[in-house]
Each structure stands twice: as structure tokens, then as C-alpha cells.
């Protein structure tokens, strides 16, 4: 336990100090951390799923608070919670099926010796129990006010009837944890394998002699382009350098090393070049529930240019980048303003920065991200295939459970 605590503290510290950045890296670290949290979590007999959910939630809240801008962290935490809920659900349905059978035989016995009244009630309780475990509490059950606690003692008392059931339960506990860890492992694989999944689709989107524009650097985009190259497609890539961090330069280097025809342009030249471009492909930092995209700064401009010239604007995003939140004031709240020293040299401008002088003073704003509204995006390519921006909410409903949206 203590080592998990310290692991959490260390990761929180890293997130806070911005020592670890980028959605891929943070997502991977988060999911691995959560896996060890789950495996170290001691589970009580009753209500194991709730215990796991609480543990994961507690850690998740810390992680999200440490760096709210890294949306992937929150996404992964919600995914893990979803996995726990799903596994719990499937186990309870399985158990319920067994319980139903058992009850049916019990009912027969009771029916035989005690007569009417009791079985009817028992059936109602069982139905209520099934309802409460199978589904999230519906409005009706809430209104009916059927107390959940009332059902639990009953089931346990009915469980006391047969010794086999308690044994079942302990194995059930172990099974739940096992299944959850299994599910989390799948998630880890999915996150680390999302590049390949996305890159596989490259051939369908990039055609011979096309010109592709990208901005900044994204590993997904790199793999995507290279996959098309490997399939003997020949095309050219324009890379907007992505000031002020100039990650486009790194991408260009990588692309050239892999034998692609690459041209580096300044961000401000995007509008001038867009008429020669067949498709804009960018990697996202996060995809919001409305289909809006948060990407490296400058992306919105590229999207507007693409819209103006009717060039398809394609966003590549692994499923861990799908964020179930709706953007509210994304330019400010989902952004991070970094040090102005990335833009200009402090020493050179130190005489303009003196606020004391009262006269004009220099302010430098250096946002990390840009928000692209959904109407500018033509297509999302995720590891499950291509999707329209308006379909995002549906995907999100598949990946997350509604209870976890607010953590």
C-alpha cells in the first residue's frame, strides 16, 4: 500500500511540475498507475466494485487536479472506472442468472410448504435487486424509494440458505478484480497500440501525388504518414513549424529520415500554401464531446484556411484522447499559458518589461493549445475508424459511463 501511495505522490508531483507532458505519455502512466492501485486495493466482501471505484476515483481526482490541462489523464481514469462498472455489471448479471435459478427452486419449495404471499414478495425483492444492480438507478426507482439497503440483507439472508453461495462470492470478488485488471491491461494495449490502429487506415485517405499539410509534431501523424509511405504511396508533406516550440522541425527531421518529401513552412504561410494542399492532417491533444478539437497552437488558423479552400481537415486521435466533457470557454480554461521565454529572450527585452516605469509595458502571451470548433473538422480518424464530428458524443457514450463524467 505505501508504495502505491508514494507512486501516486510521485506521479502527481511530476504532473504538477509539468515534468511529464503529452497525452500519450500521461495516459500510459496514468493507466499503469491505476492498474497497480487496483491490484493493491484490498476488497471487502460486500460491494467490491464500489470499493474499487472509490479507490480509483480518489487517485483520479488527485491526478486531474495536478494538471487539469492534461485531459488524457481524466479520460483514462474514467475509462478505468467504466471498466470496473462493466465488469461488475457482467458479473452481477451472471450471478443474477444463477440467483434466479436458485430462487426459482427455493420458491418452489417455499411455495410447496408455506403457501402464497411470501414468494410474491420475494420475487418483487429479487426484481428490485436485479434492477438496482443491473442498471444505474432509474428515476422511477429513485421516486419509488425502494431502499437498496433493504434488498441487501435479504439477499444475504437468502444467500445464507446455501453455503455454496458465500464461497461463490469470495471467488466472485477475486474474479471481479481479475477481470478489471484484465480490462485495464487491454486498455494499456489499446493506448500503446493506437498509433498502429490509426496508421492502418492511412492508405484509404492518402492518395498518390497528394500534398498533405500538418502542423506541429504528433507521433500519430508521423506513423500515419509513414504507413502510407510504406504502402508505396508517393506524396509530399508540408510541415508548419509550430512556433514557438518549433516541434514541426522535429517532425520534418523524422519524416525526412523515413524518406518522405518534406517542406517546412512558417505557420503564417499556411494560408498561402493551402491552395496547393489536398488534405490537412493534424494530431489532437484532446477531442471534446461536441467534436471540437484541442490541438497545438496555430491549429485553428490552419482549420480556417482549410475551410476557406474546402480542403479536408482531418484529425487523428487515439481513443484515450476522447474527452467526455463539453468545452466551455476552451481558449482559457482548457489552455495553458507557458513561459514567455519561449517567444523572446528575457535579456533583450528586459528594459521593456519594467512595469514600474508607468509607460507602456510589454506583455507576452504564450498559449499552448488552440481550440478548433467542430464545424471546421471534416473527419476524425480514431483507432476504431473514421467518424464525423457529430458522432463523437456517441463514441463517448460507448467508452464512458455517465456516472463518472463529474469526478
Amino acid at each position, binding site marked *: 500500500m505505501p508504495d502505491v501511495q508514494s507512486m501516486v505522490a510521485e506521479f502527481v508531483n511530476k504532473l*504538477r511540475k509539468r515534468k511529464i507532458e503529452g497525452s500519450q505519455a500521461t495516459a500510459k502512466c496514468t493507466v499503469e498507475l491505476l492498474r497497480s492501485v487496483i491490484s493493491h486495493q484490498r476488497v471487502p466482501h460486500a460491494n467490491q466494485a464500489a470499493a474499487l471505484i472509490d479507490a480509483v476515483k480518489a487517485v483520479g481526482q488527485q491526478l486531474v487536479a495536478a494538471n487539469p490541462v492534461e485531459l488524457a489523464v481524466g479520460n483514462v481514469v474514467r475509462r478505468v472506472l467504466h471498466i470496473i462498472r462493466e465488469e461488475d455489471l457482467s458479473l452481477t448479471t451472471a450471478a443474477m442468472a444463477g440467483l434466479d435459478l436458485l430462487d426459482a427452486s427455493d420458491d418452489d419449495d417455499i411455495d410447496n410448504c408455506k403457501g402464497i404471499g411470501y414468494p410474491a414478495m420475494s420475487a418483487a425483492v429479487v426484481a428490485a435487486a436485479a434492477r438496482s444492480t443491473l442498471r444505474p438507478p432509474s428515476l422511477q426507482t429513485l421516486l419509488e424509494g425502494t431502499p437498496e439497503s433493504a434488498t441487501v440483507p435479504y439477499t444475504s439472508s437468502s444467500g445464507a440458505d446455501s453455503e455454496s453461495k458465500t464461497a461463490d462470492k469470495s471467488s466472485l470478488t477475486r474474479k471481479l478484480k481479475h477481470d478489471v485488471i484484465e480490462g485495464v491491461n487491454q486498455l494499456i494495449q489499446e493506448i500503446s497500440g493506437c498509433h498502429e490502429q490509426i496508421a492502418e487506415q492511412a492508405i484509404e485517405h492518402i492518395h498518390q501525388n497528394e500534398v498533405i499539410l500538418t502542423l506541429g509534431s504528433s507521433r500519430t501523424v508521423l506513423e500515419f504518414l509513414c504507413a502510407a509511405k510504406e504502402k508505396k504511396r508517393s506524396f509530399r508533406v508540408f510541415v508548419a513549424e509550430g512556433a514557438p516550440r518549433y516541434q514541426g522541425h522535429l517532425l520534418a527531421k523524422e519524416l525526412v529520415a523515413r524518406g518522405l518529401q518534406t517542406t517546412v513552412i512558417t505557420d503564417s504561410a499556411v494560408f498561402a500554401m493551402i491552395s496547393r494542399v489536398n488534405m490537412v492532417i493534424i494530431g489532437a491533444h484532446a477531442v471534446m464531446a461536441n467534436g471540437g478539437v484541442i490541438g497545438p497552437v496555430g491549429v485553428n488558423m490552419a482549420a480556417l484556411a482549410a475551410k476557406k479552400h474546402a480542403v479536408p481537415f482531418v484529425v487523428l486521435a487515439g481513443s484515450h484522447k476522447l474527452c467526455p466533457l463539453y468545452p466551455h470557454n476552451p481558449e*482559457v*480554461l482548457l489552455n495553458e499559458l*507557458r*513561459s*514567455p521565454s519561449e517567444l523572446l529572450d*528575457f535579456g533583450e527585452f528586459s*528594459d521593456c*518589461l519594467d512595469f514600474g516605469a508607468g509607460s507602456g509595458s510589454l506583455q507576452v502571451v504564450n498559449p499552448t493549445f488552440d481550440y478548433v470548433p467542430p464545424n471546421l473538422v471534416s473527419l476524425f480518424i480514431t483507432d476504431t475508424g473514421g467518424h464525423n464530428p457529430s458522432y463523437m458524443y456517441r463514441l463517448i457514450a460507448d467508452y464512458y459511463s455517465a456516472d463518472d463524467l463529474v469526478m
Partner: protein
Amino acid sequence: MGAQKKGGGGARVSEDAEEQSHQRLQAILLADSFATKFRPVTLERPKVLLPIVNVPMIDYTLAWLEYAGIEEVFVFCCAHSIQIIEYLEKSEWYSHPNLVVRTIESHKSISAGDALRYMYEQQTETSQIQGDFVLVSGDTVSNMPLADLIQEHRERKKKDEKAIMTMVIKQSKSSSLTHQSRLGTDQLFIAVDPLTKQLLHYEEDKIDHPRGSVCLDKSLLESNPSVLVCNDMQDCYIDICSPEVLSLFEDNFDYQHLRRHFVKGVLVDDIMGYKIFTHEIHSSYAARIDNFRSYDTVSKDIIQRWTFPYVPDINFSGNRPLKLGRQGIYRACDVIQSRSADVGASSVIGYGTKIGDGDKILNSVIGNGCSIGSNVVIEGSYIWNNVTIEDGCEIRNAIVSDGVKIRAGAVLQPGVVLSFNVVVGRDFVVPAYSKVSLLQQPTTEDSDEELEYADSSSRTADHLSGLNLQMESKASELGPDGAGYIWEVCEGAHDEEWKHSVAPIPEDKLAEITQAIDDDDTDDESVVPTSGELKSDADSINTDMNDPNDDYYDFEKEVEGTVLRAVEENIKVDLVTLEINGLRLSYNMESADCAGATFYSMMKLAVDTPHNSASELYKNAASIITKWKELLGFYVKKIDEQIEVIMKFEEMCQESPKELGPLFTQILHLLYDKDVLQEDAILRWAEEKAGADEADKVYLKQCETFIQWLKEASEEEDEDDEDEEEDD
């Protein structure tokens, strides 16, 4: 001493071996500035715990050290050590997984030198410092990486045994007007070898010789093929030191200040051939909060995010992160703000603070738990925690400490510093640059004035409680319902107060300095063609002049100097004319001005020449005029110019009515005789003066007979003047 050295060397060798096996990164953090610049606030709380943008300074330093990969920090506490240790215990630093924080207490140390000596003593017993260490003070805000720098230092040390220290510098242009850096410290001149980055010269430009020269040792230039001299560098007070530094401090027990004594000692006295190197940082930030001005500047830099990731919206040391909105406004989520309040750009508002109706807040930092009434104006100020500000107050460029109450309608003028729990009375105006505290100003300057504050906090507490009682009975200096003493400005530093204050330098001060500098510039220009000797003359005159605005005055001084020199060195008239013409062009004067000035300087010369009686003075004047009439004649070709000369003369007579006054007519006559003045000019002057006040007519009356005679002479068409003149 030699033996001691050897011992130190031996220890170092063994440490080297240890270092190889375990390269633990260590730092010494001096949690005491050993200065009095933050008084009176530091009488009650140590400087490193003062909040800067709502986070104690020491947290910035520790967070940065941790981020930079330092594994062990020795926090050296001196004054208020109990408070510091308590704070560290409460905070997360003692239980930090990656950073071991140890505190060292010493109440005897009154300077950084003492602190390091104490460390050395400890060192011989415990050998805590295992190798190279980082030496910083607890008021450093930085985000620079250290690991590479330490590595660099170690490698250099391996190559060159004598490289004991690496000093971090950063480019930061200092103001050409005030000769101080952005941080309010004196302008720094350093000389560096551009190849090896070895520090060759280090000099802080003191205020008292703002136009002084930098002296570089000649041997410096002999031993180094090239020397880079810069004045736009800022010393970050971050040093990577080898253990020798500690032993150096031990050997030289008179070293107190890290820079003034230690660095100077190593550079100038050439102890053991030790060398100091510099490391310039470009993209990262580093600054030390040395005075109130740097408090202001660094706060602004933090708000402008130069210190990223140590910014208010990131939780870097257990602080509660604030939300960053547009225009750089940081606001806690639970701030209660009236809709009519106007919170402007670059402001920070802490948790649990209430902001009333119609408030205007701009460029300010407001701490946690403050309550601000309605129609309050806060501009460029730093309000710490739990401050109560009542309706209608005005606060500009002030620092307001914890627990202060400002009653309705009070005004804090720029540069005010209110210490803890002060109460400012209703409608009271706290004058600019005043420092207010509940504690009385220490009257006697003890020998240990270097010490930041009274040594034990308990004493201060006693003092305080006693004071509160006094305060009840006695009418306060801050209005009838106020509490606190306004401190006298000590050490005659009143002129300098605005330089280190939190308030920006006022416009009029700036204008004054600009003016002074402009004057200096013109001086320099005009002086260039003449000899160097004259420059010093002109300077010495310049320093005691009263009205720097008057260009003509300067010009006159220049001409006077030139004439004086000409007389002394017997320079030819042609050359003097050339020089005065040069001056005329550089000052954009007319030749009438030249005539006036030349004549003035001649007469001044005559007056200054020692004389006993009026007749002797007349003789002096006559001889000078006779000798230099050609020079004067060069400028008095026109009637206007001649009138100017007469006017000037009259002015001079009015200034010294006793000496020159009686001689007015005589000298006027002389000038007429020597053909310097024509009779037309004198007559025109008389006509002009005829309409003047009685007071102005004194000299006109004095020479009435002369003028009368002139008139007659002109009427009589040049009759024999000779006779008349002999009669005179």
C-alpha cells in the same frame, strides 16, 4: 594556516572519492538575507516567509531546487529560526520524497560569511557536505535547470583544481537613467574571459559615483587576450561552489558579504590562484528579491509567467492553485466579487477574499481572506492575507502586510509599507515612502546592524504585547483610531528611498535625472574639442550649479572656463575665438550671447583677481579689457551685440553692487575708449532704459553725465574728445 589548508585539501580528496561513488546533489539555502532592506516587516517575520504572489518566497526556492534535481537542502536559519522551522514542519517539505530538507540553526551569525563559517565548523564534525554544492538564498525565484550546470562545474573542476565557483548571471538591461537594474540593485560591471567564461572583474556601480569610470587591472589585459566587459548582466546570486569555498571563508574570517568580500577577495587578492567562472542563462529565469523594488518586479514577472511552472495557477508547493482568466487575472474559485467591481489586468485575488461594490483593482496582488469595502481603489499594490480595507480607501503602490486594518477614506501614497496588524485611522493619509509598524523603530544602530532583525522572536512578541497596551492609551501617529509608528527614514537615505521602493520611480524624479544626464551629455560634447583639463573644470562647476535647466547658464560657464584658460595659458585670440565659436554652435547660441558671455567672463576674471580697492579693480579690468578687446571685438560688431554687453554689465553690477557698481561709468567709458562700444549703442541703451523702473535706472543715473557728454559730442560732430577725456 598552511596546515589548515592541507587538512582541507586532504578532506577534499577523500570527498572526491566519495563523490565518485555517490553524486548526491546538495544545496545550502540561506534563509536570512543578512540585510535590513525589508524592515520593518522583517522585524516580525523572516523575509523568506514573506508571501510573493501569495506563496512564501522559500517555497519558490525549494520547489525550484527540487525540480532541478537537488536531493538535499540545508536550510540555514538565523533570525526568526523558530518561525522558519515551524513553517517547514507544517508544509510538505519535511516529508518530501525526493528532497531531504535539513535545518541548521545559528543565532550568532550576522552575515553570509558567518553562516558559511558555521557550516564549515559543522562540516568538520559531521561532513554533511559531500562535494560541490549550490549556494542560494531563500529569496530566489528561478526555474533554471541545475544538473547540467553542476556537471559542467565538476568537469571544469577536474581539469582545473582552482575553479572553485560558478556564478550564474543573466542578461538584464539596467536603466540608463538611474543606474540600477530592474531589480533595484546597483548596476553591475563584470569582465569575463569570452572563451573560458572566467570572471575577471566584478564591480557594483555605486550610486555615489554614477558617472565614474571602471578601472580594470592592466595585468588583466596582459594575461587574457580578450576581455568581455558587460554592464547589462544581472547577478542571480546562484552559485555552484566547491567545498574549498567553505574553507576559504574559514581562513578569511573577515569575509562577510558573498560578493563584496568573497568574490572581490578571490578576484583582487588572488588567494591561492582560485578562479571563479560564470554561467549565463538565456531561456530560464532567475532573480533574487533583494529589496522592495525587486519584490515588485519579481511579482510582475511571476504574474507574466516568466517563472513557469512556478506560477499561481499551478500547484507547485502545496499552494492552492488559482484560476487564470483572460488578461492575466488570477482568481481563486471562491472569491466573492461585486458585479460593479472592476478587476483589471495582471491581478491576483486569493481565496476567501471579498471585493465590494465599485472597487477598482489593477496590477495588484490580493491575498487570502481579505475583505475590501466599496469604492476602494487598489493599484500596483501587494495586499497580503486577512487585510481589512474599509470603504473609499485609496491604495497605490503599497505593501500591506497581514492583519492590517485600513479605515474608511484612508489613503496610502506610493511606496508605503505597512507592517503586520497596523491600523490606519479614518481619512488618514499615509505619506509616500513611509514605513509603518507597530514596533518602534530601533533608535540605536547597534554594531550588529547587519542583522536582519532582533534575534529572538519571543522578545519581539513580548515587545509587541507591551506595545499594544501603550497604543491604547496613546494617540497614534496614524490618526485617532489608528495604531502604529511611522518610521523615520534612517541613515540619511531619504534621497534613495524612491530607488528601492515598491512604487515606480516618480515622473518628476525621472525628469530630473533625464535633465541631469542631458546636461552631462552636452557637457561631454562641448568638451570634446577642448583639452581634458577643461572637462574636469567644467564638471566641478557643473556639480554645484543650481539651475540645470538654463542652457545659457551652462554656456556661460563654458565660455568662462575657456576664457580663464586662455588668460592663464596665454592662448592666441584666434584660437580662443575658435573655441568659443565651437561652444556657440554646440549650444545653439547667437553671437550676442557670445558677446555677453565673453564680457561676463572677462569681468568675472577681473573681480576674481585679488584686489584691495576699487581703483585696483578698475586697473585689473582695464588691463584685461585692453588685452582681450580683440576677442570681444569679434563678437560686438553689431549694435545689438554691444547693447547686450552693456546689459550684461549692468546685470553684473546689480549682482555685486559693492564692487563693480561704483565702477560702472568708468568701465563703460573705458569700453567706449577702446572702441569696443560705439556711442550709438550706449545711447540706444540709455533710450531703452529711460522707460524702465526707478530701481533699474540706478546705473543709468550713474552715467548720466557720460551719456550727456556723448550726446553733446555727437551733436557737436566730433569735436576734440581728447581734452574732455583728460578732464575726466
